[in-house]
């Protein structure tokens, strides 16, 4: 019972943290609208890029235009969601200047504090526009209700995994460098590779981007599930591996947070 209470308190804390960010952002309504328009540049660029590929060539074997567009939208959503939930510069500054102390006195876990208080609200604009691309591409694919549900669950689990991995890298970077400078370079490289089907990188590349840096769970596998390339068995494998990795990452984050030195450093 206490476990459930703690979990709900944590969710509430995350909700309040995000709500604060949203209210601050929505206060500038004109800026909000402009951001929504600017953010459309990224999915439009993806659309044009994939359109040119399929216009002048036969494209990627085994992948249709809309499947690749769907994958691109998933990667775009992930690229925006991760910094939205967890801003690398905000988190490192919080740790470096000791703001994090404030949150450790609150009745929820340090991990929840990280999720609740170091987000970049403007990232959500990019998520909205990328979601539009995903819906557009998805509408041109044949899909079942089960496929949509499996895709959504795998994407959510994959996003949790990538956020946790991102936090581990930020904590590592903070510990070693006291800076977030390397984190975004790492993440951008990762999303560049995830922008194309993992099968292009052969067996080793696929395993690496699935089990070592599990970005495939948030992008490639949901796309495969949505387009019916794989079925329920693959979904169950994804669930099991995600659960194991979430547990492992949670433990790593908890251990790394023990090294946090209060009052700057």
């Amino acid at each position, binding site marked *: 019972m206490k476990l459930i209470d703690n979990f709900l308190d944590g969710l509430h804390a995350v909700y309040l943290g995000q709500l604060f960010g949203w209210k601050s952002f929505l206060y*500038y309504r*004109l*800026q909000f609208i*402009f*951001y929504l*328009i*600017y*953010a459309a*540049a*990224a999915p*439009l*660029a993806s659309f*044009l*890029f994939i359109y*040119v*590929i399929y*216009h*002048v*060539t*036969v*494209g*990627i*074997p085994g992948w249709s235009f809309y499947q690749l567009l769907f994958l691109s939208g998933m990667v775009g959503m992930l690229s925006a969601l991760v910094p939205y939930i967890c801003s690398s510069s905000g988190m490192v500054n919080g740790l470096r200047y000791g703001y994090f102390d404030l949150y450790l006195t609150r009745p929820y876990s340090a991990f929840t504090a990280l999720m609740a208080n170091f987000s970049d609200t*403007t990232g959500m604009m990019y998520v909205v526009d990328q979601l539009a691309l995903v819906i557009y591409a998805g509408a041109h694919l044949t899909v079942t209700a089960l496929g949509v549900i499996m895709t959504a669950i795998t994407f959510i689990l994959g996003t949790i995994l990538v956020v946790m991995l991102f936090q581990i890298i930020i904590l590592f970077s903070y510990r070693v*460098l006291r*800076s977030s*400078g*390397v984190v975004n*370079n*790492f993440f*951008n*490289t990762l999303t*560049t*590779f995830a*922008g*194309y089907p993992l099968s*292009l*990188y052969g067996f080793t590349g696929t395993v690496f981007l699935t089990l070592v840096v599990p970005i495939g769970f948030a992008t490639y596998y949901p796309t495969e599930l949505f387009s019916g390339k794989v079925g329920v068995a693959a979904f169950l494998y994804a669930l099991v591996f995600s659960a194991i990795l979430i547990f492992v990452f949670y433990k790593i984050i908890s251990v790394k947070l023990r090294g946090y030195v209060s009052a700057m450093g």
Partner: protein
Amino acid sequence: MQRRDDLLGNGYLAVLRTTFISDFGYRIETLARLARRLIAPIASVILWTIIYAASNTTTINGFPRADIFIYFFLVSAIGSVIPNANISNSMQYDIQSGNVATYLIKPFIYPLALIAETGGDALYEFTFITLPIFFVACATVGFNLVLLRVALFPIEILLGFLMTSLIYFMIGCLAAYVINISGISNTLLWVFNVLGGRLIPLTLFPAGIASVLTILPFASIYYLPVATISGLASWSYITNGILYMLGWIAVFFLASLLVWRVSKKKILAAGG
């Protein structure tokens, strides 16, 4: 006399040198950027290699399969120098914080000081990211280097730097009106990436679009320097490209003067 010396350039060189030296403080970040720019093009190379193989051809729209590797690595290399988005970021910060007031009372022309400041960053990036990737690409692929093309490569990068500096300067001026311009700045970056040849070599675009893109300022950002040094571009294409670029620089320079003259009146010393 001192003020005249500064206006003639000593002060700007000092700003450029200071930025260059202060960038040395972030060596690990530089290594991380270098690693990203070396690793990320591999994804594009794999993608296009597979597309060429699937299409069962060695040339698509006149772009040879053999040049994929060198193209994407060199694009990645020069992407650390241009486009110069730092200029609008600096202006946004200066205008938001009110720091711009301190610049305006110094013996500097603020726009030139900005170009010198971001030029220091660009020079640092060129030295420690562009050149190493260039040498790695040369050593790996071993393409034929023609002396004149090699000489034109940094000149085209410099012209691209100047042109994008002027574009981003005009966007930076908007900060006097809308305060936050990071959205516009990011949008423009996407436009440059797609229409400038970073994601797709311009010759791979459908013929009609490619010929329009060649005239627009975007083409000279990534495509022209890379096509020049790798031998993809003919001499007439290079000559026209440089002339277009000089023309666009003149246009953007005049537009920047006008925009700066108008927006300067809206800047608040106390920030905003």
